[in-house]
């Protein structure tokens, strides 16, 4: 014990130095984005590392040149609907897999596992065609419905429900509870924390989704923030103050969620990576 502890004193210093370096590499660009977004145009080519002056002109420019409110609402609607649907479908399916033994269980479970190997780029053309046949191009439904199920959410909840003491199910059953009641009155209240962090994860990835919206929406009124930012970038390429203001606004909602809930977010992301 002593050996390990003392030998790592020098290495611990190196450790701190390395990780502080990494923190700076990570934090500086984000800091620079903020500083640039509030730096007055008159001062623009100043590269002082610290803020010089403060202005909201770039934010005003963005808000008057980009239908930000609209994009924001669309993105929020898409992310919330996807999250709700993914958690719900995953909860029901995970409950089925964790509670019952039934014919074809292994096959069906494998069917869900296998979807992990099917990238969106393989299915994009048939899915695009179907969405367009349904008349869902440039519509919220087209952004939401194809992403209403998440295998990742299913596996996460499956692990959790499987770890649930079987006695609780049995006790509830003896009390005459149907499986539906047991799900909502016994299981869900106990899984509240897991469901909450899962929902945060799914919300973040839906908010940041770029590829699918790129295919199915090409108008500002029906688009999402990520596409708005891209359009702004191609049109106003060299207006860096407004550019950084738009980037800040796009990242801000998620960033706020992250700052408030960072511990849960980090923990559940890492667990998701490990499983």
């Amino acid at each position, binding site marked *: 014990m002593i050996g390990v502890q003392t030998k790592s004193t020098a290495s611990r210093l190196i450790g*701190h130095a390395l990780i502080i370096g990494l923190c700076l590499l990570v934090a500086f660009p984000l800091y620079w984005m903020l500083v640039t977004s509030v730096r007055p145009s008159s001062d623009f080519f100043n590269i002082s590392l610290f803020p010089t002056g403060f202005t909201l002109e770039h934010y005003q420019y963005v808000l008057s040149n980009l239908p930000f409110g609209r994009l924001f609402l669309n993105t929020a609607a898409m992310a919330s609907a996807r999250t709700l649907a993914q958690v719900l479908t995953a909860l029901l399916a995970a409950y089925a897999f964790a509670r019952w033994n039934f014919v074809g269980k292994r096959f069906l479970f494998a069917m869900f596992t296998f979807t992990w190997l099917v990238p969106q*780029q393989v299915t994009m053309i048939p899915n695009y065609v179907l969405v367009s046949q349904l008349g869902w191009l440039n519509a919220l439904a087209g952004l939401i419905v194809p992403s209403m199920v998440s295998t990742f959410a299913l596996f996460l909840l499956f692990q959790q429900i499987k770890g649930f003491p079987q006695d609780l199910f049995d006790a509830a059953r003896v009390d005459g509870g149907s499986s539906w009641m047991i799900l909502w009155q016994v299981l869900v209240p106990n899984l509240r924390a897991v469901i909450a962090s899962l929902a945060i994860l799914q919300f973040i990835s839906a908010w940041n989704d770029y590829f699918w919206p790129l295919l199915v929406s090409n108008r500002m009124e029906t688009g999402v923030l990520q596409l708005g*930012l891209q359009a702004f970038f191609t049109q106003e390429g060299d207006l860096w103050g407004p550019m950084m203001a738009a980037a800040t606004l796009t990242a801000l909602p998620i960033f706020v969620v992250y700052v408030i809930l960072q511990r849960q977010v980090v923990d559940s992301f890492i667990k998701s990576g490990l499983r």
Partner: protein
Amino acid sequence: MADELQMPFASRRTVSRPLVQTPRVRLNLERVQPFLYLLPALVLVFIWVYRPLIEIVGLSFNQWNLLPTSPKTPVGWANYQLVLGLPEIHRALLNTLVYTLGLLPFSIVIPIVIAIFTYGIRGRASTLYRAIIFTPVIIAPVVVTVLWRWILHPYSGVVNKGLQNLFGLAPINFMGDPLLMIPTITFITGWGLVGFCTLIFASSLTNINRDYLEAAAIDGANYWQIIRRVMLPLLSPSILFVTLLTVLFSSQWTFVHINILSLSSFRATTSNIYTVLYDYGFRSFNIGISSASAVLMFIGFGAIAIIFLWLQNRFSFYDS
């Protein structure tokens, strides 16, 4: 199991006493129940994953331009022959390999080094470090692209201005010089990845039983020996897993940056397999070529995943 054993008995009973219907009906409901819960997820997975997977195979044997009004012409294996001979595809495959190899230092080497050196750091400092290095994961990829475009701007970007002021270097056009574009895109993607991977390795190190390290130290192993002989072998499942993630997902991770930074020029220089699939499908509307490449890519990635799973079962050391 118990249900299956009871089944014949229950049905025999209903035959002999036809009036008692309830047990049988209830039994059937019980049997159907799990499927009812599975139904929404199953239907969605079938419609949005398996249906298109089957359809893409069909499309790969046709020529089509994505217009609903224009007919699909069957062309046999012609698309596959074309795909195998197309220089754009060869280029994209080569680039994909370069991106993947270029990302490994960010997803494996740097994270392991940092995780090992920070092993044992606990408390407030560690919580703060974690919170900071994780941040890029939650920042939208589009934001990341735009942000780095500004930081690396040839004339007004902070990196070039810094280099100019400190060393008098001429502006480096990180995102406009064909030779520098792939390294730059790899770096930006790596920036988004390195913190997350560090946390994965750090978390599997904390799961390692401390007794192993202490036993090794008591046996007289020095720090490097502990790292090489104890920590790295115990990390091997995570190393394999993160390598698999990098190989399977590097194209997905780089896609956004390539697509935004190379909207028209440098498209061919920076392409990876996903951008060529996207370009053939949605820019030149050559659905046959795009579908045939998609099928081949799917088979390729499937084979890679199987090899990795086999390796994992074969070579990983588990801490049991």
